[in-house]
């Protein structure tokens, strides 16, 4: 793993017994000594600390930064209030999703957090299309943590009481452990919590301080995946990619009315025609939640059929596994629109057998956000 990049917490992970794996060019902890299941359960019961420093942090600044980003992202960024955050995605000219991301209005700039595997392409994409009108500045000198779970508020408020005053999707600059941190009340587990951007040279000290709390355990990518799956949240490159549109992916909620057909700032982003046409005429397939009826997990790639026999494949699973909190297997994937209603039975082909799954609403576990 010598050619892999390391986050500022690399030695801390290794000291704490993490199993390190290659992920998006980085050596990342997939699990610690607790193991995936207990790490998952701990996060839902108390609080988990995730190192997500591999993700891309980017500042977009200039007088018209919000308007400029709206040329690439089909969400309402101009209307995003100061100190507020919002989910979004870059689209391509066919309406496919190039990456999903978080946008925060931090007053003098929009702070963008993108996926690790896409960050170089995303930065180039923004620079190519938006400079020189606005400045696109990567922030490699900061680490990024997620502190997630019902105890997250008490843990962070012990370092700075202002953390408790933040509502879901608020952002703030907070002094934590002597470091200037850019904090958002959000995450990707379906739990209340925070994401914390911290200067690299303060990262280890802040992580150690957080981990010194009895309620906090370090959590690896394995549990991060099962947590986000139970939360019904998409993993880029699996549940969404350049071949899926926001409409097919059931992410239409992220496109505010002002950017939709008939809105004051309708369109003006790549693939608007394709996306508006799908909104008007419907889509042939949709991303849905799926609950296997038996105990066997069904994972990414399992083909889905309308019937227990017959050749008519109607889709495939894009993420799946065991849901520790649900206590049974859970999955998501794409199915033909005719099979997309909750309650519909479809069949996954696993080891040569067709096994039933029920189309289900997501999330699989109730979201515990601080509204």
């Amino acid at each position, binding site marked *: 793993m010598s050619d892999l990049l390391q986050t500022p917490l690399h030695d801390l992970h290794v000291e704490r017994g993490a199993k390190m794996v290659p992920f998006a060019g980085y050596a990342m902890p997939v*699990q610690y000594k607790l193991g*995936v299941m207990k790490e998952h359960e701990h996060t839902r019961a108390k609080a988990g600390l995730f190192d997500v420093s591999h993700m891309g942090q980017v500042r977009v600044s200039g007088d018209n930064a919000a308007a400029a980003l709206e040329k690439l992202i089909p969400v309402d960024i101009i209307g995003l209030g100061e100190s507020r955050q919002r989910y979004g995605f870059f689209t391509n000219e066919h309406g496919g999703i190039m990456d999903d991301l978080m946008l925060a209005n931090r007053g003098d700039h929009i702070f963008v957090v993108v996926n690790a595997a896409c960050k170089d392409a995303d930065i180039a994409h923004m620079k190519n299309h938006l400079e020189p009108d606005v400045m696109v500045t990567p922030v490699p000198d900061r680490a990024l943590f997620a502190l997630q779970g019902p105890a997250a508020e008490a843990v962070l408020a012990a370092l700075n009481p202002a953390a408790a005053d933040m509502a879901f999707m608020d952002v703030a600059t907070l002094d934590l452990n002597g470091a200037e941190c850019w904090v958002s009340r959000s995450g990707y587990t379906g739990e209340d919590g925070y994401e914390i951007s911290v200067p690299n040279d303060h990262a280890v000290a802040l992580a150690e301080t957080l981990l010194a709390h009895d309620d906090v355990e370090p959590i690896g990518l*394995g549990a991060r995946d099962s947590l986000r799956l139970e939360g019904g949240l998409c993993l880029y490159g699996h549940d969404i990619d350049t071949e899926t549109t926001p409409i097919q992916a059931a992410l239409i909620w992220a496109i505010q009315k002002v950017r939709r057909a008939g809105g004051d700032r309708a369109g003006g982003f790549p693939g608007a025609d394709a996306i508006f046409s799908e909104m008007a005429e419907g889509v042939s397939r949709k991303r849905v939640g799926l609950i296997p009826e038996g*105990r066997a*997990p069904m994972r990414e790639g399992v083909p889905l059929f309308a019937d227990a026999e017959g050749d008519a494949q109607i889709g495939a699973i894009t993420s799946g596994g*065991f849901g520790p909190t649900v206590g049974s*297997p859970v999955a998501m994937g794409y199915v033909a629109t005719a099979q997309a209603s909750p309650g519909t039975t479809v069949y996954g082909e696993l080891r040569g057998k067709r096994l039933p799954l029920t189309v289900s609403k997501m999330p699989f576990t109730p979201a515990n956000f601080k509204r």
Partner: protein
Amino acid sequence: MKYTEEHEWLRTEGDVVVVGITEHATTQLGDIVFVELPEVGTTVAKDDEAVVIESVKAASDIVAPLDGEIVEVNEALAENPGLANEDAVGDGWFFKIKPSDPSQMDDYMDEAAYKDLIA
């Protein structure tokens, strides 16, 4: 106790052999969440796929280590797959096989050789 390179353990009990996977294997696999056991009465050949196990990470196969007939399976394990993590060489056993050629046991490692393998 004998061990295979596939990280199975084999314990002779009278004329049957109890088969499970080692603690080393369960540690590597992580939390086991699903076990599909063979049917009692199935005749298997050595290296046939006998059991499917799924951990939180991935699916893997357990092969029959011997030619023979499956005479008993661990139903408790099907109900509670975590038994394989909790007690790999005890309550977490998978199946019992009546070997048609008990001399096949001689092909496998003793504990010292297995410990060398995983060292």
